[in-house]
């Protein structure tokens, strides 16, 4: 884990929420099975140091 680079995560809520909606739509696609989808999601989250 890297050092914290910003004090707040409350910036530009419109953009942040839009990104969340996009990600939610993507993981709801059903052409790839749920286990593979989750494995890819976790791998990407780890690579991006994302804890959400």
């Amino acid at each position: 884990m890297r050092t914290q680079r910003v004090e707040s995560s409350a910036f530009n809520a419109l953009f942040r929420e839009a990104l969340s909606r996009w990600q939610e739509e993507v993981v709801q696609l059903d052409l790839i099975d749920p286990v593979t989808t989750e494995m890819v999601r976790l791998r990407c989250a780890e690579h991006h140091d994302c804890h959400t």
Partner: protein
Amino acid sequence: MFFFRQYAYSLGMGHSTSQFFDEVLGDRAGVKKELANIHDLAWDAVDKELLSLCKLRVAMILGCDEEVASARQYLDPSKADAISQWPSSNIFTDREKSCLHFSEEFIIDVSSISDESASTVREHLGEEGFVTFVNALLVVEQRIRLLLVWSKLVGNAGT
């Protein structure tokens, strides 16, 4: 020229790519809508010339000719031509250089971006600007990667 570029941004940014994505996504309306939405928000939220500059560098590194051409048309040609020599060029501002440096690290290995690179961008854009820039860069990067992969899978992007 400035007004032409601003007008062109609002009308034509990534138009062919958007059409291609619409065709590929077909009736997946939710994904299609949100993909278009984050694209629009990214270009609304960040200085368009700065983001175009970074988009050009990202497209060059990833080898996406369509998005290289798309980014170039909205930039000062002398800057677009010099972009691969940005570290030693004096036509780029420190702000632009900090964002180009960050963009290159982001594309090559996002998990290895140094604190120094991040803090330099934050000094130029402010904390909120930095967060917004990174989100916009993510949108630009994933859009180019999607274009590259989907073009291979389903054929030419038609641009």
